[in-house]
């Protein structure tokens, strides 16, 4: 497998600012920008088989790039082309229903992440085993601790095998033992998946797994380079 699988060309994305009566009145006297530009003409080409990292300060637009690639926010300007199916790993456990059992929630969350019924039935034993919930799986999820919920969420989310995997800060949930296990699980997932784009603040991890890393600042692409170069550039910006 060779070639580019994700290509962003001049991707610009704006977020509108909400106008309420008070802001409309205030704007009559004091003209302000009515939108916020989250991404400014981003050009990126990510190759098949590559593990690509994105670093930058909070609010710099890293997660927004992942959301553009996964189709949540299509670009306002420019194009984003993707070859293959994409899956975004973020906000593990979003959509859980507190009053349904673990199994029901696993099916629900799996379907939200885009699995069909046949796939979920096939993967359910693996999910249950990885979550280590035992008989708790038949209990409503409101009785779970935060760590147990995170385990179930990660078990479902990591059961997917997409062509392109996008990871947004999902490491570090649960107790230390499980955290080790989940890190290993994600690394396995990274190794098995063709192409990975990862957003993380843990630079150690980025150095270990990424082939190339891009630095994003205030919605602009600053540079792309080896993990070491990128981390140096990041510290140059943040001072």
């Amino acid at each position: 497998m060779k070639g580019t699988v994700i290509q962003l060309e001049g991707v610009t994305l704006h977020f509108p600012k909400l106008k309420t009566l008070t802001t409309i009145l205030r704007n009559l006297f004091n003209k302000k920008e009515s939108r916020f530009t989250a991404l400014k003409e981003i050009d990126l080409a990510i190759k098949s088989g590559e593990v690509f990292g994105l670093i930058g300060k909070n609010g710099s637009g890293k997660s927004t790039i992942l959301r553009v690639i996964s189709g949540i926010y299509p670009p306002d300007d420019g194009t984003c082309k993707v070859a293959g199916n994409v899956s975004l790993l973020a906000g593990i456990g979003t959509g859980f229903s507190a009053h349904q059992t673990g199994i029901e929630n696993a099916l629900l969350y799996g379907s939200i992440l885009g699995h069909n019924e046949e796939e979920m039935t096939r993967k359910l034993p693996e999910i249950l085993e990885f979550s280590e919930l035992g008989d708790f799986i038949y209990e409503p999820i409101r009785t779970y601790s935060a760590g147990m919920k995170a385990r179930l969420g990660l078990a479902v989310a990591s059961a997917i095998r997409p062509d392109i995997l996008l990871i947004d800060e999902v490491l570090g949930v649960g107790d230390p033992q499980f955290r080790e296990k989940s890190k290993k699980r994600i690394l396995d997932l990274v190794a098995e998946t063709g192409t990975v784009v990862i957003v993380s603040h843990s630079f150690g991890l980025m150095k270990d797994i990424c082939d190339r890393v891009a630095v994003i600042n205030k919605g602009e692409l600053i540079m792309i380079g080896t993990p070491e170069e990128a981390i140096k550039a990041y510290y140059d910006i943040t001072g």
Partner: protein
Amino acid sequence: MDEPNSRVKVTEVGLKPPLIKAPLYAIQEMFNHKFLIRNLVVREVRGKYRNALLGYTWTVLEPALLAIVYFFLFYMLAGNPDKLYAMWVLIGIIIWGCFGKSLQAVVSSLTRNRNTIHLVYFPRIVFPMTSLMANIVITLMSCIVVFPIMFAFDLPLTIHALLIPASVFLAGFLAIGVGILLAPLNCIYQDVEHLVRFIVRAGFFVSPVMWTYEMALERGAFGEAAMYNPMLTPITLARHGLEGHATTLPPEIIIWTISFGCAMWLIGSIIFEKYERRAVKYL
């Protein structure tokens, strides 16, 4: 950009079929996401009756208690109504409730699911569809109440009883057309939700819940105008189904209602597809 593998298709993010196809595209997406929709509907229905001792019994109890209240109210105001009056009110409350709750749920479907929208992309028409179906399921459960009523009032159970579920679906169909028209706007200004809540409360009185179209027609011009309320058809059809006879509603009124529903669906689905993307940026 070259194709890495013949199996893999290159797609441009955010391309959509032409807007004119939106009404059919929405229905097609519903079938493509059956499993997801089923799970989401179960979540919504379960969530509503969680931790309740009486559980799903409330689907029946709620309209029944309301009907008793309205029956006494009307009895005091008008005196000596038809013996079936309480039943008319009950079926009216169920059908109107289906429309009102579905409309409110559809309008707020995107705002209530903001976390999921931020997490993953699938066609967003799934959210209003889910809200609608959850309310239809709940209403169909409420309709079980008609069986004891038919028995108590010695009403014949005929083929016309099928008008009851049919009118539930018709009420839902009217609700989703109007609802998806407003759902994107509600992401920007949640004033819409408040306004819709008011309209649903007010609409209760201008729809034949506490009165029937036969009563309205005795009032001349006002009654004539009331016939063009699209909710008149489903409520009246359900009442006739409960009474066990074919509907006496003029066919042109039924045709008008169905055409109104189709027109709202066409406009609503096109507006929804056109604006949902811009709208979710406000979430």
